[in-house]
């Protein structure tokens, strides 16, 4: 049995693909977090996942299209696959959609819950608080700076740098710088000795100062240190500007930074609220779509794998239904389906085996039947089998031959029907029907009837047929044609009689005749005239009767002698015509009508014997019509039992033959004439039969006597 390598439903490639999809989804999910370093590849991940969806969509679409096409074509297993896939999609889609719907709802509500009026206000208040706190500090520093600036009032520029150093140190400022009205640096002092130039005020600061307004603002240094920048105007003739950078205490700066960061973050999140919803929904949708599509695709593959053996089974069953039992399906799994496939294989094997056995048996039966048929066909006895309703079931060729009927014309017909169809066989069929209807056991009966070829005698043996349940299912009849046998026996008997007569009677006849002649010769002179006359009459009678007996014995000798002496090819037509010529000349009162089919009369026979036959028959006819009349002679060719015959018919218009005489007319010593030995027709029949032919009285001819001779065509 072909057990293939058992494959898991999901192969490594699919697992890998699923892993990649999951990883991609996880990365995308992480990327939506603001501080994730995956943030940068978010769009790429989006594209990758979208492309994956499209690919899966194409795969699923292709699979679905293929499935629909297969289902329309009604391919094996396609409907089961379609049903399973639909069920799976339905089962997967329904909970996934529900989860998706509630997740999205939950997500939106959750995001909305992050933001509310109280938090908004709290954040703004916190920011404002820190701004106010810083502003207070700034104002304090402004006042401090204004006080410090008094010491610089009207101070020569040469002393300014020293004074600046002094007041910077006393005030704790980070940096102090004195600018002229032309924005040039007059003096500069920094806590960091490495600084050689001050952090210059920008355009906006100068613009404000030019409007006689002191400048104070929070600022950040390049190193993100929060400072308070104060620039005040020193009111002199030529105004000067003092810039002081105060460091905001670290604690305050940190707090402010923290509040600013939180506030900014909150504002950002509030702004991104809808985008977040869209983004999360998008991610969720992608997750759902990807997992659903991947699951459906895998479902297609898995279901196809599961259904594959079923498909094979369906194909196999179809093949078995069409008679192909050689189907052996591959066993792809060792589960129930595998078991089913194995069982199927065993079943087909057994069916094939049984079929082969049945075929063999039927072949043997057929062989036996044809053997029996050929035996039956070749036996000389006729065999007929009957159904329970006595209609004929089978008939062998010999039966048709014996009954002179066309092959196959009996089958399926009842005997009574056949009796109507073949009037010549009616007697036979009716007696046969009586016998098989009445017989409960084997029976034997001689049945004589007048067939188309004259009298026939059959020896019929029959037996009823019973089934195993002892029900009568029909009958069988076997019959032999005894006509020829009986005739041969008769002929032999008559031959023997003739031979004895010739031997036993003819021999003493000559001495009787001689003795009678001698008596007359010796006594005629010695007797008185009256006695001599009586003697003469008596001896003449003796001599005449002896002559008659001699003739009779000769006739018998003739009858006993084989007639087929010198056979040769003979044209019966010429022979008949020669004879007719003779008869036409001898008797004018009888006319002859001949009906010859040209070339139909070639036989292989002894011309002398055949001439005698014709002569006897014509003479008979002539004698039957003493007052003259018409004699018809017909010569034609007929086919009987697959052999060609020359048929010669001689019909006179005489007194005809009685029905009683028909059966015995060809027997020796059968004569209707006052004179004659009664051997004429017997000799005729003997000669014809010795030539392999047949002679019979045409019983359908009623205007006189009709003889039909059939001789094999040469």
């Amino acid at each position: 049995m072909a057990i293939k390598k058992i494959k898991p439903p999901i192969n490594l490639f699919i697992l890998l693909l699923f892993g990649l999809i999951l990883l991609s989804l996880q990365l995308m999910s992480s990327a939506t977090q603001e501080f994730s370093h995956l943030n940068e590849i978010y769009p790429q991940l989006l594209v990758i996942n979208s492309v994956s969806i499209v690919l899966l969509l194409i795969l699923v679409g292709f699979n679905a299209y293929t499935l629909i096409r297969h289902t329309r074509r009604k391919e094996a297993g396609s409907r089961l696959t379609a049903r399973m896939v639909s069920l799976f999609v339905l089962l997967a889609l329904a909970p996934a959609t529900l989860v998706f719907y509630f997740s999205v709802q939950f997500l939106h509500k959750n995001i909305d819950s992050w933001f509310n009026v109280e938090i908004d206000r709290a954040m703004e208040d916190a920011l404002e608080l820190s701004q106010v706190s810083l502003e207070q500090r700034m104002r304090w520093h402004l006042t401090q700076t204004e006080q410090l600036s008094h010491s610089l009032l009207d101070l020569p520029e040469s002393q300014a740098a020293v004074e600046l150093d002094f007041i910077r140190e006393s005030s704790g400022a980070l940096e102090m710088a004195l600018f002229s009205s032309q924005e040039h640096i007059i003096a500069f002092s920094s806590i960091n000795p490495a600084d050689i130039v001050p952090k210059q005020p920008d355009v906006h600061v100068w613009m404000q100062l030019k409007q006689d307004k002191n400048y104070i603002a929070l600022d950040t240094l390049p190193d993100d240190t929060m400072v308070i920048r104060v620039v005040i105007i020193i009111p002199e003739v030529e105004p000067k500007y003092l810039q002081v950078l105060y460091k905001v205490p670290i604690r305050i700066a940190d707090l402010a930074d923290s509040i600013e960061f939180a506030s900014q973050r909150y504002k950002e999140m509030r702004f991104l609220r809808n985008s977040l919803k869209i983004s999360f929904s998008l991610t969720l949708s992608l997750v759902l779509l990807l997992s659903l599509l991947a699951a459906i695709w895998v479902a297609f593959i898995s279901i196809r794998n599961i259904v594959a053996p079923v498909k094979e089974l369906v194909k196999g069953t179809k093949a078995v239904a069409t008679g192909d039992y050689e189907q052996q399906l591959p066993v792809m799994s060792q589960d129930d389906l595998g078991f089913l496939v194995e069982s199927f294989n065993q079943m087909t094997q057994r069916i094939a085996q049984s079929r082969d056995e049945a075929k063999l048996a039927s072949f043997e039966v057929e062989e036996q039947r044809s053997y029996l048929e050929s035996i039956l066909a070749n036996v000389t006895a006729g065999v007929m089998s009957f159904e329970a309703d006595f209609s004929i079931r089978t008939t062998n060729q010999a039966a048709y031959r014996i009954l002179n009927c066309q092959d196959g014309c009996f089958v399926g017909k009842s005997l009574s029907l056949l009796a109507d169809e073949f009037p010549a066989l009616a007697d036979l069929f009716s007696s046969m029907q009586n016998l098989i209807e009445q017989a409960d056991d084997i029976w034997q009966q001689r049945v004589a009837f007048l067939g188309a070829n004259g009298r026939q005698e059959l020896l019929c043996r029959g037996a009823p047929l019973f089934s195993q349940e002892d029900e009568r299912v029909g009958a069988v009849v076997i019959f032999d044609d005894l006509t020829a046998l009986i005739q041969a026996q008769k002929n032999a008997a008559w031959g023997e009689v003739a031979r004895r007569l010739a031997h036993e009677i003819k021999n003493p006849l000559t001495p009787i005749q001689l003795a009678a002649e001698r008596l007359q010769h010796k006594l005629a002179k010695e007797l008185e005239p009256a006695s001599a006359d009586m003697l003469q009459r008596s001896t003449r009678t003796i001599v005449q009767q002896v002559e008659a007996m001699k003739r009779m014995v000769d006739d018998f000798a003739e009858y006993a002698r084989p007639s087929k002496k010198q056979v040769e090819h003979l044209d019966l037509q010429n022979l008949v015509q020669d004879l007719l010529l003779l008869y036409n000349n001898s008797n004018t009162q009888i006319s002859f009508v001949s009906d010859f089919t040209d070339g139909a009369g070639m036989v292989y026979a002894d011309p002398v014997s055949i001439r005698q036959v014709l002569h006897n028959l014509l003479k008979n006819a002539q004698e039957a019509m003493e007052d003259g009349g018409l004699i018809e002679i017909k010569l034609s060719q007929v086919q009987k039992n697959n052999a060609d015959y020359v048929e010669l018919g001689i019909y006179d218009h005489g007194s005809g033959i009685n029905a009683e005489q028909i059966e015995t007319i060809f027997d020796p010593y059968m004569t209707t004439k006052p004179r004659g030995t009664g051997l004429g027709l017997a000799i005729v029949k003997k000669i014809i039969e010795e030539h392999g032919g047949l002679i019979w009285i045409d019983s359908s001819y009623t205007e006189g006597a009709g003889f039909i001779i059939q001789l094999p065509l040469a």
Partner: protein
Amino acid sequence: MHVWANTNFLPVCLLALGGLFTTPVFASEFSAQIKNASLEKQDDWYMLDADVEYVLSPAAKEAIESSIPLVWHLKIQLKQVRYFHDKTVINLNYDYKIRYRALLNNYSVTNLNSKSEKKYPSLSEALDSLSHIRELKVIPVSALKKNKLYEAGIKLEFDKEQLPAPLRPTAYFDSEWNLSSDWYLWQLKK
């Protein structure tokens, strides 16, 4: 240094998805416009002077107010015009970031190349500072061949990739975020 073709990689990719979301619009009423630009020879350098008009969409303005930093790239490119394939002579990129500082209540403009930062009390002033590009060194005069035709181009590209991730999918297809200008091209001969 960037190559032109790579600049719109992602939107093109997303476009290729076959309009899964919405139809993207590239040029919109909110795109920045380059009013004029020229390369002037000063001493041994070609200097760029250009005037740009920034038109911020309500969404962009709201984003800035919500402390989301916006980044633009000023792209400058000079190509030598040839029969078959133009030869890129120089490809410069200047990056600017505008953001709002809630505590200081000002707008800072940071040049990301030089890391220098300037603060402005209002958004318009901050954008104004970016609008006028003056005497920006582009290429030494000696780098250009005489009597050869050159094509100069500048473009102001808004960097959507710098936006927070949740905003980006919307930004790719929303015309309110199409803040980049088209290429402004002109020809130049030494």
